[in-house]
């Protein structure tokens, strides 16, 4: 049909001459300038991505060290004098032993009691040679 021929002809004519657009002078330079500006600002943002994880890790380490458990309450605050096997109760009393550890206190008390009991038994025995 004639109309279809016109339509196909139209397409052929459009293809036969391709118009060249009149691009404004300086458009390319303007775009490149803007891209360059954006590239220069981009690295600073990337730098944050490198620093942020390290900073976060440092914060975690500091927090964990601050929250580390304190030394147990039973540890001795002062250096205790070594207890001599033949020490008397008076000497024991005289010695300035301050035991913070309740277990240690208990063991010292038991040792003292055992020594006292032993002395008592020895005293109760008839003296040899009398």
């Amino acid at each position, binding site marked *: 049909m004639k109309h279809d021929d016109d339509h196909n002809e139209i397409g052929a004519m459009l293809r036969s001459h391709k*118009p060249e657009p009149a691009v404004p002078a300086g458009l390319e330079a303007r775009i490149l300038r*803007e891209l360059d500006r954006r590239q220069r600002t981009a690295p600073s943002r990337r730098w944050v991505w490198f620093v942020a994880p390290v900073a976060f890790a440092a914060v975690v380490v500091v927090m964990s060290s601050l929250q580390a458990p304190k030394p147990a309450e039973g540890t001795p605050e002062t250096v205790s004098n070594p207890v001599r096997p033949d020490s008397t109760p008076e000497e024991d009393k005289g010695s300035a032993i301050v035991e913070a550890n309740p277990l240690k206190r208990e063991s010292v008390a038991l040792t003292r009691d055992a020594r006292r009991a032993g002395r008592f038994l020895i005293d109760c025995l008839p003296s040899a040679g009398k």
Partner: protein
Amino acid sequence: MLVKRYHVQVFAFLMTLTKHRQDAEDLTQETFLRAWDKFHRYDPSLPLLPWLFTLARRLSIAALRRKKPLPEDIYESPSSEPTNAARHLWELARRELPPESYSALWLHYREELPLKEVATILGKREGAVKVILHRARKALAERARVSSPLAHPPPLPEPQGTMP
């Protein structure tokens, strides 16, 4: 490299949509900035130019929604005589057709893109693009017929008088 190679084509395509030089310039710059930001999403196995056209079209739609469209620029004065019929047709298309039809013509006949890619760029189905192109060619044919009487001389008047 990308800008040097494609900025002319992107600008020309945006002119078909906006019909205003200043808007097309701004949108061309915006297109390449957007391409720079979104380059990680570009599939290298596909051609680059249609991707740029798609970005350009989306930006032009967003820009048109934001502001009131300005009056169209006029490239040439209407009285200037085109040197050939093809150039006349392109001029008619630019003046008479709506932006969507003109941009479809531009992409298919000027950029030689296949219908499938034209459809992707314009956000339409291939069948819809065929219809748009058919109607655009038909409209151009009619306008060309009207505007160029020498090309299609009017029919001779019927002889007067009755036959015996």
